[in-house]
């Protein structure tokens, strides 16, 4: 490699045209060709010399980047006046121009209006240097704290998941004697075993240390518990902690099983909590999630398109959950979709299919539209806009036709506002002016007139924003989807539109609150009061009639199918999981089996008459026992069940 480079180094000389241009810039015209050649050689040599000296300053400055200051110091070393004021915001401040057969790179110096400078507010004073101490290592073991890099990097996790034979855990190989006492004996043993059967695919070890088990227990409890502050903390921990990769399979199973059961239970609050966990996991930069998408995506898609997510569809705001999950789905597609796994196209296909189906319920329709809309304006343009008139007709039929059911009406309302919201901005960008109501009606049918007014509004807003951009100050807010769920105050009239408040991101994670404004009446217990935590240790693809979405875990090309839940009595907390042909109908009964375990915890105000988990006497002990059982049985269970 060096051989190829060196001749280049030898012959690299500035072009003579540059010399001419430079000479002209200082007022020397008509430079002879020989002069140019001589000059360019001399100048190139000097530049190389200065660059070499500048490198010295970079090394002593303990940096990897050469700065203009280094060049200045090198010039000073040679007794040459440094270049004053050569500072630039950009990395390479040169502009390129060509014309008349000449190509030029020049340094653009804009004329600056003094009044502009005076009038702009002073920039924020940069933060002062400060000192922070942390433990890089404690008696040879590096603690997994945010200040330290993740113990296993993302690349490492990827290698482990894709090529398990090659994977070498750095913690075990390189720092063998340094290994922590926490993992001490077990990991050493398993290592020895792995070595002896090194030709076989090594069994992936899933033992968690005692600390990790405690942590897992605390985190999962807090995430689905009732204390919002605790939950915020737990989610923050999931989103930032670098040492979670070992627990990732557990979290993934927790979420997918949780969704599977709580959809059946129509437990809206818990579904929201679980989605927020997904979000937190995605926010964690140290986790390699690809391996667990087959569990997470069905869970998320379920929360988008499930026919029913809450106990009282006419009142509870499950729309917000669908929106949130749709945004999550979009994020997943953006981050993980590759040409190999085709996540985005498969998801799009699924949504489109349910959208095209005439028999689709309003809720599912809403979900699939939301899911598609979040994927971006292009998707809206190609998949939703052409269907506007059909959907419009369908909405019209419900709104203006004979009243069949209140629920349908609400659903149609929501779909309508959703369509208006997403389509208006896209139309505003693509459709030429003017906005003629009749024209719109002709193009989009029933929704045309409303769409027209929305588009006008969107255009006005865009113009306003464009104005603001021209100002000197620029605030960048990172949009983070946050979810505020509010239950309608009035019961009679249609529920409000989903109330989504965007909070500008700050250092701490935005706290998502579930606001329950309506007093809880004993006759109709509201969802937050009931809490189910369901753990299933069966990782095999157990398909049940109640499970709404099933994505084949082998990631085959088969499309995701959404099946409508068939349970009729929505208040029945029925857990039905088919496993190897047998069906377990009642919760608790399954606990006796070795392969499957269901624990349903119900809090006191729950509809205890229906829930048959009456064996659990008090809520606090219930929670404890749950987790204990879980903790003791999980490690072994996960390895057993993979048959």
């Amino acid at each position, binding site marked *: 490699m*060096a051989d190829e480079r060196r001749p280049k180094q030898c012959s690299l000389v500035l072009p003579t045209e540059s010399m001419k241009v430079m000479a002209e810039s200082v007022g020397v015209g008509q430079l002879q060709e020989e002069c140019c050649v001589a000059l360019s*050689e001399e100048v190139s040599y000097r530049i190389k*010399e200065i660059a070499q000296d500048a490198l010295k300053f970079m090394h002593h400055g303990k940096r990897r980047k050469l700065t203009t200051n280094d060049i200045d110091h090198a010039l000073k*070393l040679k007794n040459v006046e440094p270049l004053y004021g050569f500072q630039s915001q950009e990395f390479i401040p040169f502009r390129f121009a060509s014309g008349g057969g000449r190509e030029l790179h020049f340094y653009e110096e804009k004329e600056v209006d003094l009044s502009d400078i005076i009038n702009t507010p002073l920039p924020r004073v940069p933060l002062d240097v400060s000192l922070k*101490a942390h433990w890089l290592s404690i008696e040879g073991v590096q603690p997994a704290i945010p200040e330290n890099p993740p113990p296993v990097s993302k690349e490492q996790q990827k290698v482990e998941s894709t090529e398990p034979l090659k994977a070498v855990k750095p913690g075990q190989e390189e720092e063998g004697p340094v290994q922590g006492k926490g993992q001490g004996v077990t990991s050493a043993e398993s290592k020895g075993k792995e070595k002896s059967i090194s030709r076989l695919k090594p069994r992936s070890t899933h033992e968690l240390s005692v600390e990790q088990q405690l942590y897992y227990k605390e985190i999962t409890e807090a995430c689905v518990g009732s204390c919002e502050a605790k939950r915020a903390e737990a989610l923050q921990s999931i989103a930032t902690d670098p040492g979670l990769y070992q627990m990732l399979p557990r979290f993934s199973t927790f979420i997918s099983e949780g969704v599977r059961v709580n959809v059946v239970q129509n437990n809206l609050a818990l579904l929201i909590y679980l989605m927020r966990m997904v979000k937190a996991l995605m926010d964690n930069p140290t986790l390699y999630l690809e391996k667990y998408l087959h569990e997470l995506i069905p869970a998320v898609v379920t929360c988008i398109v499930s026919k029913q997510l809450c106990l009282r569809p006419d009142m509870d705001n499950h729309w917000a959950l669908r929106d949130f999950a749709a945004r999550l789905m979009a994020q997943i597609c953006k981050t993980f979709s590759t040409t190999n796994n085709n996540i985005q196209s498969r998801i799009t296909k699924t949504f489109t299919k349910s959208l095209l189906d005439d028999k689709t319920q309003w809720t599912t329709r809403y979900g699939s539209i939301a899911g598609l809309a979040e994927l971006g304006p292009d998707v809206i343009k190609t998949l939703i806009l052409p269907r506007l008139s059909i959907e419009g007709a369908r909405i019209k039929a419900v709104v203006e036709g004979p009243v069949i059911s209140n629920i349908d009406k609400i659903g149609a309302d929501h779909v309508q506002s959703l369509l208006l919201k997403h389509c208006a901005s896209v139309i505003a960008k693509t459709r030429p002016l003017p906005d003629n109501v009749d024209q719109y009606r002709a193009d989009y049918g029933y929704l045309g007139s409303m769409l027209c007014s929305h588009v006008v509004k969107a255009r006005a807003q865009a113009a306003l924003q464009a104005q603001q951009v021209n100002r000197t100050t620029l605030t960048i807010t990172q949009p983070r989807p946050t979810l505020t769920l509010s239950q309608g105050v009035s019961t009679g009239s249609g529920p409000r539109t989903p109330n989504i408040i965007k909070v500008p991101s700050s250092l701490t994670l935005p706290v998502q609150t579930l606001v329950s404004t309506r007093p809880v009446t004993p006759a109709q217990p509201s969802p937050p009061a009931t809490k189910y935590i369901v753990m299933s240790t069966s990782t095999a693809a157990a398909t049940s009639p109640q499970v709404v979405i099933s994505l084949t875990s082998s990631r085959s090309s088969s499309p995701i199918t959404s099946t409508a839940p068939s349970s009729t009595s929505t208040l029945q907390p029925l857990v039905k999981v088919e496993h190897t042909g047998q069906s377990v109908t009642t919760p608790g009964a399954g606990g006796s089996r070795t392969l499957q375990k269901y624990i349903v915890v119900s809090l006191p105000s729950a509809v205890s008459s229906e829930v048959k988990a009456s064996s659990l006497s008090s809520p606090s002990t219930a929670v404890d026992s749950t987790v204990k059982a879980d903790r003791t049985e999980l490690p072994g269970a996960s390895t057993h069940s993979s048959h």
Partner: protein
Amino acid sequence: MAAVQDAPVEADNEKEIKTETLNDAAGNHASAAGGVIPSPPVASTSSSGPAKAGGPGSEEQQTLMAVLQFLKKNNFVGAVDVLRREAGILEDSDESQGQELAASALGGAEAGDATCTLSRASSCTTSTPAVAAAPAKGGEDQPDVNVVLSAYSQQGDPALYQGYYSGLKKFVESVLDCHRAELSQLFYPLFVHMYLELVYNNHETEAKAFFEKFSGDQECYYQDDLRVLSGLTKKEHMKGNETLLDFRTSKFVLRISRDSYQLLKRHLQERQNNQIWNIIQEHLYIDIFDGMPRSKSQIDSMSGSLAGEAKREANKAKVFYGLLKEPEIDVPLDDEDEEGENEEGKPKKKKPKKDSMGSKSKKQDPNAPQQNRIPLPELKDSDKLDKIMYMKEATKRIRLGPESLPSICFYTFLNAYQGLTAVDFTDDSSLIAGGFADSTVRVWSVTPKKLRSVKSAADLNLIDKESDDVLERIMDEKSASESKILYGHSGPVYGVSFSPDRNYLLSCSEDGTVRLWSLQTFTCLVGYKGHNYPVWDTQFSPYGYYFISGGHDRVARLWATDHYQPLRMFAGHLADITCTQFHPNSNYVATGSADRTVRLWDILNGNCVRIFTGHKGPIHSLAFSPNGKYLASGATDGRVLLWDIGHGLMIGELKGHTDTVYSLKFSRDGEILASGSMDNTVRLWDSIKAFDDIETDDFTAATGHIHLPENSQELLLGTYMTKSTPVIHLHFTRRNLLLAAGAYNP
């Protein structure tokens, strides 16, 4: 500290000061070789003509003659007259002495370098045999030409150069395997000299062709130098080029066994290959030894420096690497200890331990220098108190080893914006100093005790000086803060160092000065001027008072805090001095350089007593083992090398880092070597094992042919990644907790 004034060094100091003062008065950069430095004469380039106050003595005479010659050549008639008058040299003696000088210069071992890079071109008169040829040739056709370069003026047919070189290549490839590795060493120096000859004689195209054809054959670690060479295609460029001049002013040293050498000689004589023979004669120094030819790996481990390997004689001098006897401060120790023990409630236990420690220190180490070889400052009461604290802490020290690794506490500098350039901790780990690219030095207190400065003079007058807590009263409570900023430098600060008593802080900077700051008043006390170019590193002596500095001018200087002129100047490196370190007994200093060598200098007489070659990149960190026997050095190539000072041998190579090693530190007992690097890792190495594994029998000690075991992986005890934070400094607390520091670079 006053006691030092009576020391034997005193006389030397005065001499130094006189010459320096004169030079400074002339307002010119000058380097003067003191009479006390028997290292080769240093030519001064100051145009105003520095005068020499030193006495007679053949060496000085020669220096003077060199200066005179130079001045004459440049037509500084006035300066010549003045110098001659002051030195009392007769005009006729000039010529005769000139010959003498040339003759002696032939024997001169190293080039003394002048301070100024630009003028260095004309100042290299000192060491090459070319000097002899200069007057004759220079007089005829090139009155102003560089004497150095004129050696190249001998003409050979440029077209034949490629033939010569490939002929030699063929020959080397054809010899027996055991000789091939040794003879391959010739390629690089020959290649460079032949290329330079071509360039010097204006055969630009041939030179380029030659370079292209053969540059690929050279060892990869010469890449940096080759890059410099590749840019150099014109005779005019040669004048100011440092790398080239390094090559010219110093003979490239090769170590070859007698058999191999005979082979080579016979071959060249058979072929009548005078061109190559001439180069070997004039520009190379072949150190012939009897015995087995060395293997490729043996050669590779030692080569890489700018001027080849060190000669064997260069590392023969006796080095007193033992530690000094600790002063006896038993009485206060007893009091303190008993107090402490009473508090702790276990009164009897520690007595015998302390006694044993005392008796150990009383035994005189045979390798230790005399206690007063270098005059050291007397201990003050506060120093004694500190010593007692040190002893107490030392008893609580954790014994480290492969089984019990140290905990590492990392101090991250946040919001430094890539500006952190140097860090130092005090010995008791109570303060951190950071040097920054924005010319500031910042001091932090890491203990809850805040930094306070002394009250102003007016306020101090009001204090009751008889009171017991007068030391407390003089401090200004209002000024208490966690950190202080010291302003004064006018360029990036590249080195900081605390004095052992924590009263002073040194900093060196791009602006060419070393500054001494008071940590009582947080003001600058002295600016030491002498280096006219960036000063890359500075370091306090472990006993205080003295400090060393080194920088771009390739000269390391030894200073005392109360002298504004250097006491010693250590010249000999062929490129920038990048790092400096005091030996624990304060009798020696080690300097690392961009010429890829480490040198050890004797403070007493200014001699270079060790030259360590083997690094393949500029050296950026040095550390002595606490017992003074070993030295570790880290370089840009990411390797850490271990050296036995007594034998002058390389004894270990630690591979693992992937970027520049910026910091090295031995644990307090020397069991663990910690290294911190630009690659964002801290690594711990088993130094005991590294030192034990080498068995230095008489043969290896005599010839220096070490065989390094490839055991870096076994010696590596731990690797700790930081989060994009290069590790700039490491420090073991008195209890063996490892502190590391660096700036977060997102």
